[in-house]
């Protein structure tokens, strides 16, 4: 199989404009003849559904949450990037493009990333017009702060709740379309199968999570905006319901899955406290603007941090990376923290964290300024840990946070199944091997508001006059039967262990072997161990109740079943990629001073995996990455 990303020709800066002109259009009166399904209501999904509704398409939007306002985009704290250059500090479209390509360790497409940078400013305009209350200067203009991996201040923010405010903007735009009747919304409704007819996406099968009813919905095109898969690790910063099922089901129906091993471990999270821990809480990266990260120089230090004199502290990021200091990219900061904790320098009663210290900023800026910038984060930290960050440094440690991998898509964001699109975190496209802070919101909204609504018209235009495949088509009945069969088998196991027990055990394997540091031996072991646990799961899981009403254990079991399959693919991909880049660190491939060692000659490609049946070795298809506008360099933040 050959992959064609269908990247337009011409100069980098002109590609998107030229492509938009080349794409067929659907005229306004014809748009209502087309039906589009959007699954997921985060920034990408709500943005796309609202925009398609504004354009006049007939849209159905599905979410497993009880409201379209709750998707996990809401938890993004720090901000959203744009190359407005309001600060007059040398920013430009090209610089945002360059920082993002470099930050992704040269494993993303130039054309996609450039388009993202071009659209970044329009996102800020749109969000501001919607009433997103971004932080402002006293003169009334928009404020900015800086984020990891950049030397300009280009991040727009709404206190520590930027994701919430942007999502509410998209949710409200979607509510307006629901009111107008262009969009029909299905809440508490989980997509469990993609239906493909004659090689094209024809619709989805969903389960009503209140009544248990399984139903089919067809459309001319299907858009998956279902987020990332960090919950494969069990403990992550993701919301509890985040899962891979929608994109995994699409993968099983023919959509290639790209770079599954590219996962991001976020450096600033609250360390785990005990075995009952259900999730890890992120402390925004923006804290690294004013907080200094350090560990005691002595191993197994037990003194109170305030009693440790300056000369017995190691500000290891400032020492190792003087140019970027505490603002190195996430992957670099995470590995540096792991190295200190592995060396016995960890802090806290479990010695499983490093300090993030605001003492100097409090002295320099005063209590009020620090509160204005980070007050809500400090409060959140205190609620969770019982410690006051105004008085003692925060303890932080890396945690799984974001997945750069996802469904392979072309320049139009279409997967290898015609008519099936993946947007936002669900696709692999823009962040390469590492995402920079404040870029997820940018990408989700670029895909949802601007790119997908434009490119989908190019596909729909060719179907003018054709009705969607009706839900009475036998392919839908077959898909419904498959969903019911899966559900019934899970309920019938009547075993002796809970779903969460299996999820936790799976998470331990994935974290140990496919987490922050990966080895060939460890990955091979995981590839052997996961199927054994998977088999035990299907035999021994215990789910009480029925499939005919609300059954949260059943919902989780379906998701965990798919995580088992995904986890194996993550490990295979990590084993295949004999290099270190971005979030993927293979212990065998590092420089003498412990930095990631890329292998551009052999691995400057996107690894797209096909599904050939359960338990069958997947096929690897490579999309070679061409770099014409940036020079591949060893990333240095020193």
């Amino acid at each position, binding site marked *: 199989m050959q992959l064609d990303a269908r990247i337009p020709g011409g100069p980098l800066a002109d590609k998107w404009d030229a492509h938009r002109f080349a794409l067929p259009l659907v005229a306004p009166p014809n748009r209502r003849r087309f039906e589009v399904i959007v699954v997921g209501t985060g920034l990408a999904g709500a943005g796309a559904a609202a925009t398609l509704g504004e354009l006049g398409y007939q849209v159905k939007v599905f979410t497993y949450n009880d409201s379209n306002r709750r998707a996990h985009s809401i938890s993004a704290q720090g901000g959203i990037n744009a190359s407005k250059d309001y600060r007059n500090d040398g920013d430009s479209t090209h610089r945002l493009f360059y920082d993002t390509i470099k930050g992704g360790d040269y494993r993303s497409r130039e054309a996609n990333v450039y388009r993202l940078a071009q659209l970044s400013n329009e996102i800020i305009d749109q969000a501001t017009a919607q*009433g997103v*209350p971004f932080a402002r200067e006293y003169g009334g203009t928009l404020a900015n702060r800086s984020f990891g991996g950049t030397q300009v201040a280009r991040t727009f923010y709404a206190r520590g709740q930027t994701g919430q405010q942007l999502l509410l903007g998209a949710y409200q*735009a979607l509510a307006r379309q629901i009111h107008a009747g262009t969009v029909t919304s299905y809440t508490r409704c989980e997509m469990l199968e993609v239906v493909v007819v004659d090689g094209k996406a024809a619709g989805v099968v969903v389960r009503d999570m209140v009544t248990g009813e399984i139903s089919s919905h067809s459309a001319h095109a299907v858009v998956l905006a279902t987020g990332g898969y960090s919950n494969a690790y069990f403990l992550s910063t993701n919301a509890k319901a985040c899962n891979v099922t929608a994109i995994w089901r699409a993968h099983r129906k023919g959509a290639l899955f790209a770079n599954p091993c590219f996962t991001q471990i976020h450096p600033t999270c609250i360390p785990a406290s*005990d075995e009952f821990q*259900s999730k890890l809480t992120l402390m925004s990266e923006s804290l690294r603007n004013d907080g200094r990260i350090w560990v005691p120089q002595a191993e197994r230090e037990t003194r109170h941090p305030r009693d440790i004199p300056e000369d017995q502290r190691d500000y290891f990021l400032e020492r190792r990376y003087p140019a970027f200091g505490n603002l190195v990219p996430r992957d670099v900061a995470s590995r540096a923290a792991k190295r200190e904790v592995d060396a016995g320098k960890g802090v806290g009663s479990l010695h499983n964290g490093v300090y993030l210290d605001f003492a100097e900023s409090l002295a320099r800026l005063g209590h009020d300024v620090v509160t204005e910038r980070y007050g809500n984060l400090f409060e959140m930290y205190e609620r969770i840990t019982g410690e006051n960050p105004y008085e003692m440094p925060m303890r932080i440690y890396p945690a799984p946070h974001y997945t750069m991998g996802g469904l392979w898509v072309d320049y139009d964001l279409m997967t290898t199944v015609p008519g099936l699109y993946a947007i936002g975190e669900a696709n692999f496209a823009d962040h390469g091997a590492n995402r920079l802070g404040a870029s997820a919101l940018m990408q989700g909204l670029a895909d949802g508001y601007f790119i997908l609504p434009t490119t989908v018209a190019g596909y729909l235009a060719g179907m003018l006059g054709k009705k969607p495949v009706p839900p009475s088509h036998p392919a839908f009945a077959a898909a419904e039967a498959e969903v019911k069969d899966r559900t019934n088998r899970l309920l019938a196991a009547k075993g002796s262990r809970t779903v969460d027990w299996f999820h936790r055990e799976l998470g331990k394997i994935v974290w140990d072997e496919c987490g922050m540091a990966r080895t060939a031996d460890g990955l091979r072991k995981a590839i052997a161990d996961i199927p054994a646990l998977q088999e035990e799961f299907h035999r021994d899981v215990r789910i009480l109740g029925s499939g005919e009403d*609300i059954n949260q254990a059943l919902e989780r079991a379906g998701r965990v079943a798919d995580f088992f399959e995904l986890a194996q693919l993550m490990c295979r991909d990590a084993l295949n990629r004999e290099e270190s880049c971005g979030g993927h660190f293979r212990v065998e491939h590092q420089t003498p001073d412990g930095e990631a060692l890329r292998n551009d000659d052999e691995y400057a490609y996107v690894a797209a995996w096909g599904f050939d049946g359960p338990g069958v070795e997947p096929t690897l298809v490579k999309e070679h990455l061409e770099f014409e506008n940036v020079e591949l360099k060893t990333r240095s933040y020193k």
Partner: protein
Amino acid sequence: MDLTLRVWRQAGPDRPGAFEEYRAREISEDASFLEMLDVVNERLTLEGKEPITFDHDCREGICGTCGIMINGKPHGGQKGTATCQLHMRKFGNGDVIVVEPWRAAGFPVLKDLMVNRSAFDRIIEAGGYIGVDVGSAPEANLIPVPKAVSELAMDAAACIGCGACVAACPNNAAQLFTAAKVAHLNLLPQGQPERFARVEAMVDTMERFFGSCTNHGECEAACPKSISIDFIALLNKDYVRAKRINRAMVSRA
């Protein structure tokens, strides 16, 4: 710590409900309230009893999905804290904890502690937005917004839509939720064109589902984002003006 839970169990919307008592032994005081319920649910499952259904998602106090009446107080009564961020260290060993769903006619129980809050979505759909299609936005710095205005709008916009305000109110009024959204949008210059149509449509929709506000102030005390009831005054002021202005517009037509 060892606790006794009295939990509301209800099999479905039209089924009778009742309290059941469970022991929760050896709970870590570092566990969150929801993690404590996770542990109880794991044990119930192993004992062959159906686990307790409760809504939750982000577990960091921002998505607004969780919401439980704990000892008669929405989210347990710790100031500015959602249920997911309430930690067991706030309870004492041997405590008896009463655990219930939101009680409001506008939020019918779906199962156990889970309720249907879609009435909130209906209020937003009625007008809780600024009508600007993608593509038609002006340059972001074209309209300066005074910092104080933007900060106040943000105070209102911080609402997470959890429904604690309704659950806390003796009248089950949704004024604080509605006022927070109206104030967020009506304070900003971008929100002015639809200001009076918005407030009228949202309030009228709200009244189809919820009771009336009689200024108890319980909502502000229960709000996990500590949203001020000052916004209700703003809502009322705009609503009265809207009734006059919108009617005047009708008589002109």
